[in-house]
């Protein structure tokens, strides 16, 4: 890699990231195979941007997000955050870097301890990482509650007293407590109702602007990702098939999978729906334990060539900032 100027140095650099889960079977629990949840993923996340990571269930998007924060062990490859390699550092060392990188989880019901009050949930990271007096902590909690739009009077209530959208706000406040730079948002709106989703997304956008946050926004909601993301990476079966600027990727998807995925999204407009022609993929996503030979998408791809069944494609930059992993674009 050549040295780039200061302002375009990425905040996160992921190279050839692999996360394999071993399958054990039999009485002796012998290793019988591996699930290649994430297989050779490389991506950069620039400071202040939102990188959308989309794909269907089981494609490895959540595992990628967790591996970047070292919440999953990394099998191979490197992850560099703010110039520091974190893929091999000891967990003790990792703890020191944790404040810069936080996560917002999918299900606000399950990611908040039901026995803790809102204020203790939000202040827990402060206990762990900072030495503040009781008064300072209290002020900080109130500040955070204000900034995510929670009423201060609710500080001593428990999670079950809140609705889904408000619970997600608690989760966001907790993630913000240590002034992080990077937040991995793992399907933060998937469990919410449509009218509440927009509230939470607007909040995330406001916070990003106020605090210069960088997001990795993991979602299967392609409309929402288009709305929030600067750049988008599309994953299929553990690999990135396409990365590009959001507007380019949505207006002219190049990889056949991206094309099919986008064409399959129904639009809330009967006019468009009448003429929309979905590219209906046949079959199901293969198991990541037994991916097909060659390109992972070859057995469902409507445009597959001979070579796709034999040789695995690599991620190539075909125009500035646009990367595709497909034999159709190799010539």
């Amino acid at each position, binding site marked *: 890699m050549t040295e780039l100027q200061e302002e375009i140095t990425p905040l996160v650099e992921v190279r050839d990231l692999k996360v394999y889960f071993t399958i054990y079977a039999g009485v002796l629990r012998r290793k019988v195979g591996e699930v290649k949840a994430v297989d050779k993923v490389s991506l950069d996340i620039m400071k202040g941007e939102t990188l959308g990571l989309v794909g269907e269930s089981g494609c490895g998007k959540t595992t990628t997000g967790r591996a970047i924060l070292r919440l999953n062990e990394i099998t191979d490859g490197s992850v560099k955050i703010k110039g520091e390699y974190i893929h091999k550092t000891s967990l003790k060392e990792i703890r020191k870097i944790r404040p810069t990188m936080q996560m917002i989880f999918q299900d606000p019901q399950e990611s908040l301890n039901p026995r803790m009050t809102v204020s203790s949930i939000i202040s827990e990271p402060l206990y762990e990482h900072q030495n503040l007096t009781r008064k300072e902590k209290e002020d900080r909690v109130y500040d955070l509650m204000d900034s995510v739009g929670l009423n201060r009077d609710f500080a001593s209530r428990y999670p079950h007293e809140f609705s889904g959208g408000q619970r997600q706000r608690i989760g966001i406040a907790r993630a913000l407590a240590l002034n992080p730079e990077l937040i991995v948002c793992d399907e933060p709106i998937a469990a919410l109702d449509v009218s509440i989703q927009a509230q939470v997304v607007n909040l995330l956008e406001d916070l990003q602007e106020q605090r210069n946050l960088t997001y990795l926004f993991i979602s299967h909601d392609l409309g929402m990702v288009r709305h929030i993301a600067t750049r988008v990476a599309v994953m299929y079966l553990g690999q990135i098939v396409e990365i590009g600027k959001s507007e380019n990727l949505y207006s002219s998807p190049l990889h056949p999978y991206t094309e099919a995925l986008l064409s399959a*999204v129904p639009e809330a407009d009967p006019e468009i*729906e009448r003429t929309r022609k979905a590219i209906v993929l046949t079959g*199901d996503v293969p198991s990541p334990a037994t991916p097909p030979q060659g390109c992972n998408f070859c057995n469902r791809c409507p445009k597959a060539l001979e070579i796709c069944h034999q040789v695995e494609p690599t991620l190539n930059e075909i125009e500035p900032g646009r990367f595709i992993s497909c034999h159709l674009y190799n010539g």
Partner: protein
Amino acid sequence: MAEDLSPVLSVEDLKVVFSTRKGEVHAVNTINFNLNSGELLGVVGESGSGKSVTMMSLLGLLPSPPAEVKGGTVLFEGKDLLKSSSREIRRVRGGKIGFIFQDPMTSLNPVFSVGFQIIEPLKKHMRLSRRQAKTRALELLDLVGIPDPQKRFKDYPHQFSGGMRQRVMIAIALACDPKLLIADEPTTALDVTIQAQILELVKDLRKKLGMATIWITHDLGVIAGIATRVIVMYAGQIVELASVEELFANPQHPYTKALIGTIPAVRGERASRLNSIRGQAPTTLKEPSFCSFHPRCDFAFEKCVSHNPQLLEHGSNHLVACHLIEDKGIALD
């Protein structure tokens, strides 16, 4: 027979109440609608709006207690389902009325083969022999696009993927040539490319079989693609009912408008900021004497707090429950 004239299903003043420790929750509050043959009626609303409860109550599928149908009539083929004995209802359920549920994993029985589960209604409702039933089951599996039905017939639900399981559910629902198919969020648990497959299949089947369908969902995109008419529900009531083109082109109720505005498009213009609806959906612990949407409505005025609006016709076949339109006759922009 003059089949096209009389509706397949007509629901009048349906009320469902749940008794909870905090009091009675008015989950469905005075609902009226008709379903004509060959029509696909979409029912949209957020969680807790009463869309599933409405449909479950039609077939006596709600556990009682805590649920209780407080009144109303549900006419299906001239019979009031709410007054039928459980034996009579059982004859209709799974026979003339087919049901598809949201989660294909939990609604199929894991200990019986898929074939067995398709044959079951055929033997019960159509009194087919084992052999006839099997032939029909294989036809159905083929119809819903399951490759190699002969082989798959003996497989168990866990051996199928989510999309394939939902196809099996559809096969079971269609087994006895239903007049009415009720689908409750059938594609919500599926990935978008698999959802596209199922939607194609349903469109195709409806062309072939022409049954009336009620499709419950929270996804306005899905509705826009398949429905002919749409009901929008909020807090247990219908707030708007119109044909799909009319509803999206000319939504009247502030809730419908706001809801359509909250959805980011995948195609066309990208909105710089999403419209959101402030606050959250209410719990319906009291029978509302006000418009349930007024705390979240930008246009609410005094009457919205003191009177519950009626569902009235504004324009041809366009029903809206809103004081603003009723009193002031304004279509808002």
